[in-house]
């Protein structure tokens, strides 16, 4: 299932992007995850998306919490600064990093244990703050590193590898992201790179809090009969509402699709999302409709994937805070220190 190619080879004929980088230039260290892990597929999708988007690897800051998913930033974008923070608290660290330098691309990688349990609060608050980031939850419904405990996204009634039945209701992170104010909400499946790669590209192009819930089966602890996060289950119950391509405007746009089948969505950075509708009446601009749609299908046991919601006029945290367009970490003392004259006046006011 994994389509992350290892080991790294540099064949002279490998295709290059606009930055003269091959896809391999976006890889990281060799993964230490289990063979077949869905997380490796997501890493591969990130690599593919960044390469296709001509993202400068060193202009990406990749942050994660703790867990199998949170190990993955070491396996892609080896020329980027990475940060394994603490369990569940990646969002706050990413928020701080974003405050310090708004010019980088922030990629937050987390798991369902990391984000839906210990980190639920921070997930909620970074969504409502509109932190400009791509927040990917690699969702396998299980704690892998501690060997198979249920996470908060595990469905009620699903079983663990040891046969224990989960009695708790699951948290739906997509539903929460929609409610919390995320301006880009999507769900995908690690085994569907044709859907996942464009979704990641779209999330990168989006300014604001972009959330991607990616079902990512755990081959070691949650890929068995009775699991609702297994490859088999998700493939059987997946309903994709749309397929999309992201086309930066700087490139010539070639329309390969018949009119009427496409919905074009312009992003802040000028790129255009082209949604090919599968669900005939699905409109990704309507937050309430997205909530209803996903809930209705979830009740039927279906996993809705695709771009579920996008606000093309979203603003981000820096706009809310009215911070300077320049990175705060680059401001010089003359811009920060009010100086002696001001201090003399302050002293006079304290008498």
């Amino acid at each position: 299932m994994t389509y992350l190619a290892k080991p790294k080879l540099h064949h002279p004929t490998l295709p290059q992007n606009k930055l003269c980088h091959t896809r391999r230039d976006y890889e990281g260290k060799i993964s230490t995850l289990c063979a077949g892990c869905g997380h490796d597929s997501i890493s591969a999708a990130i690599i593919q998306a960044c390469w296709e988007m001509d993202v400068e690897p060193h202009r990406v800051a990749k942050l994660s919490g703790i867990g199998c998913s949170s190990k993955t930033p070491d396996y892609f974008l080896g020329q980027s600064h990475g940060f394994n923070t603490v369990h569940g608290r990646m969002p706050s660290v990413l928020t701080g990093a974003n405050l310090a330098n708004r010019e980088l691309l922030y990629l937050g990688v987390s798991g369902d244990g990391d984000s839906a349990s210990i980190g639920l609060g921070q997930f909620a608050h970074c969504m409502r703050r509109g932190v400009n980031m791509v927040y990917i939850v690699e969702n396998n419904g299980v704690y892998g590193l501690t060997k198979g405990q249920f996470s908060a996204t595990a469905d009620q009634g699903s079983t663990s590898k040891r046969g224990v039945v989960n009695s708790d209701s699951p948290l739906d992170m997509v539903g929460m992201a929609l409610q919390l104010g995320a301006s880009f909400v999507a769900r995908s499946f690690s085994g569907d790179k044709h859907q996942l790669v464009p979704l990641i590209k779209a999330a990168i192009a989006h300014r604001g809090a972009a959330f991607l819930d990616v079902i990512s089966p755990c081959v070691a602890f949650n890929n068995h009969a009775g699991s609702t996060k297994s490859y088999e289950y998700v493939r059987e119950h997946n309903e994709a509402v749309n397929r999309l391509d992201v086309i930066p405007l700087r490139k010539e746009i070639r329309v390969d699709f018949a009119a009427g089948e496409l919905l074009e969505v312009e992003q802040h950075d000028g790129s255009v999302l082209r949604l090919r509708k599968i669900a005939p009446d699905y409109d990704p601009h309507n937050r309430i409709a997205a909530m209803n749609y996903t809930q209705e299908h979830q009740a039927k046991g279906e996993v809705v994937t695709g771009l579920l919601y996008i606000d093309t006029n979203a603003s981000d945290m820096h706009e809310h805070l009215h911070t300077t367009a320049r990175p705060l970490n680059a401001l010089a003392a003359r811009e920060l220190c009010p100086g002696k004259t001001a201090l003399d006046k302050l002293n006079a006011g304290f008498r």
Partner: protein
Amino acid sequence: MMVKPIEAINDFVVKFANVNGSGSASANELFAKSILRMGVPVSPRNIFPSNIQGLPTWYEVRVTEAGHLGRRGGVDLMVAMNPQTWNADLKEIEPGGYLFYDNSKPLPASKFRDDVHVIGMPLTEICNRTYSDPRQRQLFKNIVYVGALSMLLEIDPAEIEKLFSEQYKGKEKLLTSNVQALHLGRDYVREHLPHPIGLRVRRADNVGERIFVDGNTAGALGCVYGGATVCAWYPITPSSSLAEAFQKYCMKYRVDSVTGENNYAIVQAEDEIASIGMVVGAGWNGARAFTTTSGPGVSLMTEFIGLAYMAEIPVTIINVQRGGPSTGMPTRTQQADVFACAYASHGDTKHVLLFPEDPHECFVHSAAALDLADRLQTPIFVMTDLDIGMNQRLCAPLLWDESRQYDRGKIMTAAELEAGRDFGRYLDVDGDGIPFRTLPGTHANKGSFFTRGTTKDAYARYSEAGPDYIYNVQRLLRKFNTAKSLVPQPVLREAAQKTRFGAIYYGSTSPAMSEAISALETEQIHLDTLRLCAFPFSDSVADFIAAHDVVFVVEQNRDAQMRSLIINEFDIDPARLTRVLHYDGTPITARFIAREIANRIHSMNVATIDQHRVA
């Protein structure tokens, strides 16, 4: 028995007993400031409950021409405006002292003292007669008693009126009504009461250039001047006003005049964990970032503090300490987080602590902490407390050297990387334990690294190898040792004559300690003192202890945390350090320190003057 009334000029204590939420705070501060404007030093303490309305609150003003800024202990004039605390308030008055109260209603039932002088004034009656609005009746009662006191104590009303005009600049209606209330009080005293009383304020010239400010305001300015651009915080008493002051001054000084954009970012986080997380993220990415909190906040932050220590990320934490443990006494002062901060987090951790003694040093240390955090790439704690943080204190003016450059520490630039300089994130290239770092986005293919709390090799590659772990934790210790020379050094004050007694203290204990030393000298007890300004300790601390037979460690917590820290760090005999502890939540007083030390020395049955050493 009627005791002779206390007679004192510019040297007495007035205490106001009020009800929280009655609007007395600004009136009481007005009283203190008017005396200050007459050139007489004052030292006020606000003692307030952990609620908004209804519970007792006190404001104690020490009028001190000699400039003693610690609490003295005892009350010479009690302004008893709270029937709820009437009995307790009365007990605090010194024999011969004064009780000022609202006699609109009969005295509350109590065993009345006959050794205090009672001054009754129908405050409620006057206000009810003058004002129809219930809120005005309440608020102006406070101004009326300030007016009355100004007559009784001979405070120049022009100073009070000037303060009003500053406060209500552009709000003529408020100015007029406050001046009117002031004179209502003065007129009543003039017509009905003997005045002045034995306590009086006489114009002096002892304030000089000093300023009157609280530590949280000064600390916030230290962060502004020190170049902090990111503040992430979560409200908690007694630290909240620091973040709020930072916001106020940023709005004043950090808005780009051309673009109107903010050269700062302040986030009120969802909790303390998120606030320190944001500071860690911002510090990792090269911004000068800080949070401000108190004990329970530090508890929540400790996991991140450990990460910042291990991953070596600049972090500044201003801890305005309060009474713990747990919720403890949220609005009372202590120095009880020394352990919690010095060794915050699990495993072997040690953190740099700075101990300001007053608002002036809150400014200095907050700015210095930002430099130290960048230089040492580690968490730096500024250990202030409620007493300094929330009380206005007379202190030296805030100073800033225009030529001062921010110390951004060892950041490897793109040019240095391009020139081929070897970059190992955790390489100790200079032998000081401090490695170079790069900021995200610096160079296209050089200098990137992966930050983690887990162990790694010198090139930031994940490693569980024992030698790599040892290398890192030993280097961290070497870095901590380097910090010794970078942090503020202890302040030694030698006694007038050689002595076998020494005392160690720190932080807000400072003014009470200075006064206690003078008091002890009158009993022929001489003390050398050492004021600790930071942890790690300078070697001079061990030298000081070795040079004295008895060393008192004066602090404001139950378990003698600083004493234990000294014992632990220097591995010295605990018997060499004698505890002097004050931890009821009120600021330590000079009387307490002097009495405790004198009693201990007398009980040791040793000569207070070391003849041998004198010779």
